């Protein structure tokens, strides 16, 4: 598959080079200081960059940790296919975890369970998976420019034994010296992409020819408009409401999550170059299409305090 070829096609500019160096430094530091790290892999563009950097950091050795995918069962099909291809191509270890409460209590992103869906299938699932693995450090692809509470994140973000984040009581972080000292049961979330912006991520993907899920590129797709979002209408589990109609529109996804909660944007950007041009002119933030950020004020902060990454 041509998308999975990995050949740098372009010299990195000093800005991206500095970001890459910083991320590699963080990867190595965490692996050296913790006994059982894991990398949260969500299959999106940030995860793709994160994985690429992990492979660089430990070259010529293999990636020395497992990838953990919290699969809600409601991801886009294309994401799961892409994930399996990447894992096979690079000989990676991947654990996929789904919270069994989803099936046993019929918790879906629709109807009356929608309100608790994210908490159970993402946040609670993540806590369960981290506990089961006994991980003391978890890499994540979160970036400070994504969202206001993430702007406050440390690169080593300390979590209590029950995975809580206390934003008002964080360890100061100076220079590139990270404090990795924790007690048993506590953990650290490490964010190598902290200082990257959405534009940096795409510029790096372009420069390094990193494969990403094709849903990021514009194509004619069947979508249905619901709650102001364009939902992809490809999964049989999506039941149309009486007034809803499927339309064929030229759309792409700026972020990828659970298909019923992730809105497409109208776009004609079919290449990475097009996406970069589109982003430079964009006036709407990246996560605007993510329903989970808008449930209530300070929504992301609440989720993070509960253990969401």
């Amino acid at each position, binding site marked *: 598959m041509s998308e999975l070829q990995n050949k740098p096609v372009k010299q990195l500019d000093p800005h991206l080079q*500095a970001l890459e160096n910083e991320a590699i430094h963080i990867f190595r530091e965490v692996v050296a200081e913790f006994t059982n790290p894991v990398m949260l892999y969500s299959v999106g563009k940030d995860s793709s960059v994160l994985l690429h950097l992990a492979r660089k950091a430990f*070259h010529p050795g293999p990636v020395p940790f497992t990838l953990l995918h919290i699969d809600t069962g409601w991801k886009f099909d294309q994401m799961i296919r892409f994930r399996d291809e990447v894992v096979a191509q690079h000989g990676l270890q991947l654990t996929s975890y789904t919270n069994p409460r989803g099936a046993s209590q019929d918790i879906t992103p629709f109807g009356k369970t929608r309100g608790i869906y994210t908490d159970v299938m993402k946040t609670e699932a993540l806590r369960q998976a981290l506990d089961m693995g006994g991980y003391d450090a978890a890499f994540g692809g979160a970036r400070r*420019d994504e969202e206001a509470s993430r702007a406050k994140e440390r690169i080593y973000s300390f979590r209590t034994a029950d995975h809580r984040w206390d934003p008002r009581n964080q*360890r*100061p972080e*100076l220079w590139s*010296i990270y*404090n990795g*000292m*924790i007690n048993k049961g506590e953990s650290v979330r490490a964010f190598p992409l902290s200082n990257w912006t959405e534009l940096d991520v795409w510029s790096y993907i372009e420069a390094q020819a990193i494969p990403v899920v094709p849903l990021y590129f514009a194509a004619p797709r069947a979508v249905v408009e619901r709650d102001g979002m364009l939902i992809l209408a490809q999964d049989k589990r999506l039941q149309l409401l009486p007034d809803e109609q499927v339309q064929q529109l030229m759309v792409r996804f700026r972020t990828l999550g659970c298909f019923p909660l992730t809105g497409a944007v109208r776009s004609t950007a079919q290449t990475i170059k097009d996406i970069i041009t589109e982003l430079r002119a964009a006036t709407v933030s990246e996560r605007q299409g993510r329903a989970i950020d808008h449930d209530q004020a300070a929504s992301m902060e609440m989720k993070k305090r509960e253990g969401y990454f």
Partner: protein
Amino acid sequence: MLSEHHDAHQAASSAANSNLSASDRAESTSKPGSKALRLITCGSVDDGKSTLIGRLLWDTKSVSSDHAESLATSSVSDEEGEAGTHIPEFALLLDGLQAEREQGITIDVAYRYFSTPRRSFIVADTPGHEQYTRNMATGCSTADLAVVLVDARTGILEQTRRHATIATLMGIKQLVLVVNKMDLVGYRQSVFESIWQDFQDLARSLSVETVTAIPVSALRGHNVVTDGSAKMPWYDGPSLLQTIETASVNTVPDGRFRFPVQRVSRPDESFRGYQGTIAGGIARLGQELTVWPGGAVAKIEQISTFDGDLLLARKGDAVTLVLDRDVDIARGDLLTATVSPPLSGWTFQANVVALDQAGIRPGREYWLKSSTRRLRVRIAVESQLDLQDNSWRRADQLTVNGIGKIKLEFAEEAFFDTYADNQNTGSFILIDPQTNNTIAAGMVIEKIGGVGQPDPSAMMELTLPVGLAKLLLESDIAADHRDQIITKLVPSSKTPGQGDI
């Protein structure tokens, strides 16, 4: 491909897919793709810092419309002949935590990212309250430049002095004075000139290298991004944005080769490499280096990266070094150019900023983390900086936010550079072993003791095997005399890993 090293690199590169060379990374500023400029904004609570950052983001179109919509707009009263400008309530945009929005204050350091066609910027946004000195120190630790904000109506305040002092103590060499709220003093040149004069005196006393000053109205947007000459025709200098677009990134000379080892990579029997980020100077193929502790000497045989081998790598590059012989090297060791050894010893003096509510108490043992090494250290507070008049007063402990000089006493040999020489190998954090909290940030001033201090007529020279010397130095007998012991490795490149003392 930009540099002369390119051809040589291509010749040496063995990897088929390699077209990257660390040596090609141009450092020139103010062109697209140059390294991001990291800056910190400091000012007192009411100097209009949030408005300034907000204005910078707004006028560079870095605020997305869905974020802007969530903000209430505040209207600015009309000036004569000027239409009222409606701009969002910027503090709401910047304060990311619920508690901050509820209390209307900034609690913690937040980082903002924006870019113009010329370059990218990372802004450390820190609280203005006096009690948040520690947050300012945190923001300064990675900043290339500090923007010091002053209210045109009040001029230089104690807080301004404090911020400028902290910034220079943390190694920032470029200060930009922004005299804000010029609209409230009738845009008078004399007001600006008088504050600028005071600030130059302050900067001189702190020996800052580069100082510039800009008259600004952040609220109305004059001289932040857009030109303010309509209101201030007497000012013909650059706007704030132009100033930071053309400022240089922290271009401390590359310095002497320093490589703190992060981890040893041994994927199979055929490969043994040392992974880390070059903390100073340049690594060249064939270069001789010395391993600390121990003093073993070896040469660089390979500079390995994912994109192929390099002939040369420089400060900031994350690489894997392979050496020409088997040497005992572990995480935390420091590789340096043999010709420029680090300061090595048992006792050092350092500046520190107390970051934790518990302060820094005398006689306590802490963990010290510097680069990739963690050591036990006992500390003694010597003096505290009085930020009101910049004088150092005797003190034996520091409360939170205090800046002081301390003595570091190690139970094993430690390796540093001065902070002035190298911000990587000259900086450290102290960690409380009971709470695991980061309680201080430190900058090495000098090594205490060593050659020259003890009375030479009362000294005797001994040459011992390294192992025995170490035992002696770590023993109780030597414990109280470490300052007086001079250790010196007898160079012996024929027996790497071995040395005499």
